[in-house]
């Protein structure tokens, strides 16, 4: 059964889509964790859900809705550039409101309920060739942007005052980060679903940062952990037909737990 599945085209597509999303999520995750944006990522992804349900009601492709919702919130968060407690409560308030709208859209939508379930919990095996191509295009955009912005982005994330003094456009970069996070989130939603985006965008980077303080190595480890968790999760779900998202989140959490134990042993 498992071996026959490995020959199926939809499995190859799923594995490729998983790899594409894992690489992007693992890379941007490092910036998300360094800037303390975990909650913002959660909000962006839940409002991606609102966008998707809105698209369903209008008879549009839900993926477009995800992109629209995520980008709108990402842009708003970036432009407002709130800090600390204020950002936390503002995100909470907007997130709850947006989700409420999503619930309304869902009740208005007369189609299959599986569309909503897939959005919430992911549907990697349902990815077709056209979607895979779109995932790859968005991933390429995010990775190229990250590479171009890497040094000033890193500088501004860690040391914004001095970065600004050196002429780094700190405010513009903050908007850019949120937009890239929104694009990544919209990607990850298609693999693990709205509720589990953090398992690819936060957990691998958080684990990597426990293992090393070298910036380059942090990215490499984060991407590897995201990649192994995603591909491993997809393969495990072929062997035992439990949800893919369960396996992915379990694997990535196992890496995180192991990394914490390892760093605690080093006296961290």
């Amino acid at each position: 059964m498992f071996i026959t599945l490995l020959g199926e085209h939809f499995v190859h597509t799923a594995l490729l889509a998983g790899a594409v999303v894992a690489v992007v999520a693992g890379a941007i995750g490092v910036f998300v964790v360094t800037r303390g944006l975990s909650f913002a990522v959660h909000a962006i992804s839940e409002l991606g859900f609102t966008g998707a349900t809105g698209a369903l009601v209008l008879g549009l492709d839900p993926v477009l809705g995800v992109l629209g919702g995520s980008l709108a919130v990402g842009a708003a968060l970036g432009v407002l550039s709130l800090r600390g407690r204020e950002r936390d409560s503002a995100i909470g308030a907007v997130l709850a409101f947006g989700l409420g709208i999503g619930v309304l859209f869902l009740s208005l939508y007369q189609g299959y309920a599986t569309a909503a379930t897939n959005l919430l919990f992911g549907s990697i095996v349902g990815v077709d060739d056209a979607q895979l191509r779109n995932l790859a295009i968005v991933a390429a955009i995010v990775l190229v942007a990250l590479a171009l912005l890497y040094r000033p982005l890193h500088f501004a994330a860690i040391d914004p005052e001095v970065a600004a003094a050196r002429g780094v456009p700190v405010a513009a970069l903050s908007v850019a980060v949120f937009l890239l996070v929104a694009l990544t989130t919209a990607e990850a939603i298609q693999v693990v679903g709205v509720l589990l985006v953090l398992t690819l965008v936060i957990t691998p980077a958080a684990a990597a940062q426990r293992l090393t303080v070298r910036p380059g190595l942090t990215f490499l480890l984060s991407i590897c952990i995201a990649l192994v968790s995603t591909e491993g999760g997809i393969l495990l779900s072929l062997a035992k037909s439990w949800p893919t998202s369960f396996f992915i989140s379990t694997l990535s959490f196992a890496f995180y737990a192991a990394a914490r134990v390892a760093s605690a042993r080093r006296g961290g």
Partner: protein
Amino acid sequence: MTVVAVEDLALRFDDRELWHDLTFAVERGEFLAVLGPNGAGKTSLLRVLLGQLEPTRGRVVLDRSRIGYVPQQRVFDRDLPLRGRDLVRFGLDGNRWGIARLASPDRGRIEAAIAAVGATTLADAPIGRLSGGEQQRLRVAQALVSDPSLLLADEPLLSLDLAYQQVIVRLLDERRRSAGTPVVFVTHDVNPILSAVDRVLYLGPDGWAIGGVDDVLTTETLSRLYGTAIDVLRVRGRVVVVGTPDAEHVHHVH
């Protein structure tokens, strides 16, 4: 040659005016100390020079493309995934686009800057695990490695012991002598920098004054700037100010 020109500058927060009609110039190679009690607007002045704070009136003229900035101490998060050498490297290429490996001359410059602040053995440790003083030394290395045309330092000697205070002052002094980079040095205590400082800008509650140490740090001038009787004494080469309402000043006795 004038590197920084400040003309008729005023800064007001709500209904409190920090200073007004502030006019001075910083010349190439000059070491200028900015003194004054807490809340006198010393840090705000640096932020105006950096272009991060808009003055209420007046203008500043300077080239902001190569400023070496040592900000007021803000200790890094314990778990921040960054080494001391990464922080110093930001000063060299943190503002450039793209990803690049360090060329070996640049690597050498970073090592030299780290060695100059006596931090070679600290450079590979996570920055958040270093003491406040150790982080501060790396910040000075970060500012110097950028080959700055102007150095702005905000209380850079805070939490340094006497020996390292002297190391940092000597480094800044050398830089301005060899490269002509002027230093604007905000501090609450002039004594550690007495040997290096050319002029003092004193921001008081009732006005400001600029000039040599012996012209500004006098009983007469400070009494005028505070609007109350202040005594300035010289004790074994140290400047001691008595009578300022600012508790910190009395405590530090400078």
